[in-house]
Structures are given as C-alpha cells and as structure tokens.
C-alpha cells in the first residue's frame, strides 16, 4: 500500500532530447507517477532536453510502435497531471529557439532559479 507523500517535492532534470527517443519517455512517466502520488513535481529541461519543447518536434517522436502515444502526448499528459514544465533560458539559444517556439504550458527560468529550486526540493532526479 502507498504511503502519504503529500507536501514532498521532486525535481526532474531532463537533458535528453528528440535524437534519443528512448531517453525521453521515462522522466516524464516518473514525473506523472509522482504527481499522481500528490508529490509536487517539476521537470526542468536543459541541454539537449530543450529541443523536445520546440513546436512540431515532440509529435515526431514515436515512443512505442503502433501506439497512439508519442512524446507530444506524453508532455500533454504531464501538464494535465499538474506536472510543471520549465526550460532553461540559456539552453534555448543552443537550439536557436525563441519564446514563441515553445509548446504551450512551458515556462522559462534562469540558472539561478534552478539552483535555488534544487536546494529546496526533497529530491532531484537527473536524466
């Protein structure tokens, strides 16, 4: 049976992007699991992880053959589960991305904010 984890906070850092589909699925799945357990959860996209948030990219990543689930639907399910999606401001430049290139529901944060967050979360999962 499940413990009560209400009030706990997990930060998931995703550094893998659309060029490695098999490394994109699990971090979002774990984030949704945490949200289902009433844990406050944020996914922080940086480095290559940022490129999956560019409009039109995530839907090209089919995770399971013959499934209707792709990376875009995973990101949408995460948002529907109250998972917060944040992207590193500096990493946007790596991919020549601007604010308007981002899919809906993603907010931008700077490096100092992520350090502050990491210090205040109960656990950080790094992928």
């Amino acid at each position, binding site marked *: *049976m*499940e413990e*009560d984890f209400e009030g706990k906070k997990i930060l998931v850092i995703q550094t893998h992007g659309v060029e490695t589909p098999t490394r994109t699925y699990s971090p979002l799945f774990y984030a949704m699991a945490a949200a289902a357990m*009433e844990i406050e959860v944020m996914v922080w996209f940086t480095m290559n992880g940022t490129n999956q948030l560019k409009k039109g990219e995530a839907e090209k990543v089919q995770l*399971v053959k013959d499934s209707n689930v792709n990376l875009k639907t995973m990101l949408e399910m995460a948002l529907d*589960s109250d998972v917060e999606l944040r992207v590193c401001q500096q990493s946007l430049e790596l991919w020549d991305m601007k604010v308007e290139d981002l899919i809906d529901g993603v907010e931008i944060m700077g490096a100092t904010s992520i350090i502050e967050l990491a210090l205040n979360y109960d656990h950080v999962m790094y992928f």
Partner: protein
Amino acid sequence: MAHENIKGCIILKDLLYSVKDNTWIKVDGDIVTIGMTDIAQGLAGPILHAKTKKPGTIRKKGRPIATVESGKWVGPVKSPVTGEIIEVNENLVSDAQLINRSPYKDGWVVKMKATNLGAEMSEMTTGDAAVEAYRQKIEQDGIECSHIDDSDTYD
C-alpha cells in the same frame, strides 16, 4: 443488470458516477465502494500496478485513493467522496488487471466510510443521465473501450 454499451464501453445504470474523474460508487448506508469505470480501464490499457492508500487514511473528495499505472499511462484514482478508507481491495496487489477484467465487480478499489455523502451524491450522475453524459464524453473524445481476455460480459 441494466446497462448501456457505447462503443464497447459499459455503463451500469444503478451506479453513481463522477464522469469527470471516471470513477463510480455503490452506496450501502454510509459505506461507499469505489472503483474505476470501464472507460477508465479502457483508456489506461492493461494495468500493471495499482497501489491503494492505507485503511485509516482520511480523504477529501477529489484527492487520490490509489495510483494506477499501465505501460502507457500513470495517474491517480480520485475519490468521489469525502471520508475514511476502511477497506482496500487486496487482490489488486497481485492482480491489478482485475480492474481491466472486472471494473464494476471484483476490480473495486477501496471502501470508504463517507462523511458528506448526501451533498456529494447530489453532484454525481446515475441512470440514463450517466449514460447520456458518458455518450457525450465518448463521442467528444473519440473513445473506444477494448477489453482483455476473461473480462466480465453483460447481456
């Protein structure tokens, strides 16, 4: 048992539903049995794990009483009522796909002693109104329910 089959999805008319959260309840005094709907199990696909909260846990309406995960989805089962969990379906520990095979009978999730049942029941839907609400949802979202082997059947 009076029921409706909409695109493979079974809706039993004698249960009360929280259509938004895809849960049902069956009421016996102030004891409420709670489960996932056939639509919910169809959307989730074959369920791999179902973890309930412990007996004695107090839940407000809308908070999770269990988490359920399949190969493609993980999410909470949100309580449609406020109260205390008094019993959990232990069979789900070893056989979570009971929810897929028998969402309205053997695959029930928890029983709760409800503390605000009158008001919360009035916010739920039953009978033909539930069928109509699910018909709209199923058509709007393009849902079709599939079932694994040995699932309950309704004539």
